[in-house]
């Protein structure tokens, strides 16, 4: 192959060429805009080099919303293709690429940054900290994720998308059956993003353990922080497995090893085992923070404390433990025998018990409350019934014998969308709306938000409910087409109609952001929802140092106690605050990682070696660097806190 042939797309279509042009024009527009408005310096100083957890959170958020758009377009293409029998909108190869990227983008590059967006923004505030434990490492995490995501996203215009499913089972994903560089992109981009996530996991565990205000014991932490802690513990245990399995896959594809091949001693199911040893905990990495968000929202808008706090904590710990013991339920049909299947069935179904505890605790929190139907609360109330359907179908799938019939069918697809969409997407939209005023200093329109909610909730159910039936009727997942004789046509058409409604809901949501940014009132104070936890004791938007003085905490709802019982929140006098300096190194090093990944995708060894050396040089530079940060003087703090209660508190 000549040099340029390698970068050509193996299965081009007009849509891909149109995308190329669109990407090119967008990049030119951005570069031109930045130059014209003289924003390069601003961008570099305030965003690209920032180590502020709040800004990093916002950047995660922007990235997640962009990826939601990308994954959503893929989803619409999938449903459009299967809307009618024998459709020819997409061919088989194109369909395979689209569903593969849809899965990867949504799980790895949309859901993960979304939860890290909220964790980054909220966790330090909820524990009364100035920042995360390792601010610069936090920036590195974000930029590694971002570069991984970008590397994955260029696959469809340079060299071809991965096409072996988001689970990328070997030997299908091996060189013999997946001949384009698509799977190389998959392996390397997830590897780069995954390293970022692993670093985040360590960072947040350290933050939550070591950076809490002294008065906050573990059992006084707000529920979202608890879920963040457990989630990051899962990350720390699960992501090394992903790192290893991706490395083994890369060796097979690039260096001719035979770990997952059909011959020379390769074991194809080893990939499936290792993948799901990471992959199953991964779904709890996504869902636990969602549970935390719902816990905060349900108690805020029921105007009540969270019911059964201790059992909530116990249940997330149990879920995190069980999440590592169930991976084989992803291949009950591998022929591992009735005994192994029985064991994994029982551990799988057991997860329903702690999950059920949570559902009932939320219901009991609303009981005797004073429920206000704000947009975040609507998502929470909508989540409960939808997620219950997802949960009970999960129990049904967990029954090994029955799974022999559900496995790999649309029933499964319906089930996991019924858990992940209300569990993750609803939670993220709820959390986004709830914390938006804290992030940006104004609120999203409640009226438009409610429209978006109803479109999303109804569209979602119309899209995915029919799949339970087509699945039981024998429609396998990932079929790019089907004949009219199968009878799957009408229900798939209904699904497509639902997807359009769902898409309209997301469009309304985007419009809401635009509308509110332009017209929403700005003077909303620091606590517009009348909330209960510490993050609402800061100014909106939050000062760079978060809290001028360390808050004092006596319960899980310190801010609420402060408001209702007059308990003092801030004691002592204002002192100078130590802050870390910005650094361009995380961005530079991650950019080198991008080139590194790209070089490996195309087996270009000279740039691969140079970038590998450069990456180590960056690390060496950091280890010799002397950077003690800087202090914010007392006068400056007093000036910025002039209107806040931090100063008036003492006179109280």
């Amino acid at each position, binding site marked *: 192959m000549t040099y340029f042939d390698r970068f050509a797309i193996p299965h081009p279509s007009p849509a891909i060429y149109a995308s190329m042009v669109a990407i090119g024009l967008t990049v030119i527009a951005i570069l031109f805009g930045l130059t014209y408005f003289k924003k390069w310096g601003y961008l570099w100083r305030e965003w690209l080099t920032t180590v502020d957890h709040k800004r990093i959170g916002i950047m995660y958020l922007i990235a997640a919303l962009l990826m939601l758009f990308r994954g959503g377009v893929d989803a619409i293409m999938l449903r459009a293709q299967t809307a009618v029998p024998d459709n020819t909108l997409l061919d*088989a190869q194109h369909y*395979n690429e689209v569903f593969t990227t849809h899965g990867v983008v949504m799980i790895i590059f949309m859901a993960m940054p979304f939860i890290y967006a909220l964790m980054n923004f909220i966790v330090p505030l909820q524990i009364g900290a100035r920042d995360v434990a390792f601010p610069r490492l936090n920036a590195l995490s974000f930029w590694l994720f971002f570069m991984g995501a970008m590397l994955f996203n260029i696959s469809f215009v340079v060299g071809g998308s991965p*096409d*072996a*499913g988001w689970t990328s*089972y070997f*030997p299908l994903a091996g060189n013999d*059956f997946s001949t384009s560089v698509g799977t190389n992109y998959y392996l390397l981009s997830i590897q780069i993003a995954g390293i970022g996530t692993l670093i985040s996991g360590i960072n947040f565990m350290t933050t939550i353990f070591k950076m809490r205000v002294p008065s906050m014991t573990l059992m006084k932490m707000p529920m979202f922080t608890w879920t963040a802690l457990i989630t990051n513990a899962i990350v720390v245990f699960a992501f090394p497995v992903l790192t290893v399995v991706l490395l083994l896959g890369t060796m097979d594809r690039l260096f001719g090893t035979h770990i997952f091949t*059909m*011959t020379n001693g390769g074991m*194809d199911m080893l990939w499936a085992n290792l993948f799901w040893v990471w992959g199953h905990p991964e779904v709890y990495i996504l869902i636990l923070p969602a549970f935390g968000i719902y816990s905060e929202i349900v108690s805020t808008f029921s105007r*009540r404390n969270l*019911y*059964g*706090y201790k*059992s909530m904590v116990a249940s997330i710990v149990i879920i995190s433990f069980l999440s590592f013991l169930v991976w084989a339920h992803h*291949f009950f049909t*591998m*022929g591992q025998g*009735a*005994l192994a*299947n*029985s064991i994994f*069935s029982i551990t799988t179904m057991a997860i329903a*018990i702690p999950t*059920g*505890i949570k559902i009932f605790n939320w*219901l009991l929190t609303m*009981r005797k*409350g004073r*429920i206000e*139907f704000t947009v975040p609360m609507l998502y929470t109330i909508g989540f*409960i*019934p939808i997620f219950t*359907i997802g949960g*009970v*179908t999960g*129990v*049904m799938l967990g*029954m090994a*014998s*029955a*799974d*022999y*019939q559900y*496995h*790999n*069918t649309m029933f499964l697809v319906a089930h996991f969308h019924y858990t992940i969409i209300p569990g993750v997407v609803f939670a993220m939209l709820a959390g986004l709306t709830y914390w938006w005023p804290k992030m940006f200093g104004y609120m999203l329109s409640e009226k438009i938000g409610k429209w978006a909610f109803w479109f999303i*909730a109804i569209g979602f*159910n119309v899209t995915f409910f029919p799949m339970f*039936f087509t699945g*039981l*009727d*024998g429609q*396998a997942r*990932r079929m*790019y*087409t089907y004949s009219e004789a199968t*009878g799957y046509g009408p*229900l798939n058409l209904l699904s497509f109609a639902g997807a359009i409604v769902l898409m309209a809901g997301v469009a309304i949501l985007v419009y809401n952001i635009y509308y509110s940014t332009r017209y929403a009132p700005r003077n909303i104070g620091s606590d517009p929802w009348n909330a209960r936890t510490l993050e609402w004791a800061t100014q909106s938007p939050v000062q760079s140092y978060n809290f001028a003085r360390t808050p004092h905490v006596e319960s899980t709802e310190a801010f609420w106690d402060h408001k209702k019982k007059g308990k003092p929140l801030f004691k002592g006098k204002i002192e100078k605050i130590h802050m870390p300096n910005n650094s361009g190194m995380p961005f530079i090093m991650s950019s080198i990682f991008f080139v590194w990944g790209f070089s490996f995708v195309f087996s270009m060894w000279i740039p691969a070696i140079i970038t590998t050396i450069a990456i180590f040089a960056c690390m060496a530079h950091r280890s010799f660097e002397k950077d003690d940060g800087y202090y914010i003087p007392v006068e400056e703090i007093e000036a910025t806190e002039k209107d806040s209660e931090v100063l008036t508190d003492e006179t109280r």
Partner: protein
Amino acid sequence: MRMKWAFLSVVIGVLAVLAGCEPVMVLDPKGPQAETIADVIWISIAMMAIVVIAVFGMLVYIVTKYRASKQSADYEPPHIEGNPIVEGIIVGIPIIIIAVLSIITVKSTYVVEATPEGYEDQKPLVVYASTSDWKWHFSYPEEGIETVNYLYIPTDRALEFRLYSYGPITAFWIPQLGGQKYAMSDMITTLHLAADEPGEYMGRNSNFSGKGFAENVFDVKAMSPKEFEEWVDEVKKTAPTLTEEKFEELLLPGHLGRSTFSGTHLEFSPPPEGHGSHGDDADASEEHGDHDE
């Protein structure tokens, strides 16, 4: 409020459409294994319906009763930490439900993994079912015949499928006769089925295996043992012999219609029956026990 009615009418509409449908394949079993699984599914649906109804009921009741707009302006919700009895109930009942479902699961899993009940005393019909991109090869070693992309089986006789693949992982699935199982290149998996009534059923590969996956289907025809015998005899008499060259040709990627051969590929292209050999040619023929569970 209007939204709620719109939502309800959509739900009712969907249910009405679905109610008018034919019974779905999985819940329309034609053999003992599929019947066992269909029963399990119905039991699980019933038990899960209890959970769903309880949650939905509680949610609707609480959300209507405790909405802010219905309460007096000075109502201050109480602080409640939790209650051991209530929490005992919300843990206890799920544990009972899961325990019951676990027992059903374990029992039924052993049933569907074994020779179908009632057929234990007779010798099963062994069929080697293998996939290549994107075809199905069915070898009947005792009968000495082989078919491509279609499967004839006798009714009222235990069937033992031995599954493997000449390519990516695939799964052998005839929804109306029983659950699916993977076919892999480095080992054989065994699937026990039986058909109770004659008829034509859909069979397919249900595990994604690349470009031709959607069309990777096969027709299944169950017939009386007598008819089956006649068919075997006729194939032996009329069908061409399967040669190694012909088989190599069949393995090339692509789709084919049905074809029929006398003789099987098992002699010159043996299945990966030796455990632990994983495709290592030297001891692939050694049989230290296959994967019967």
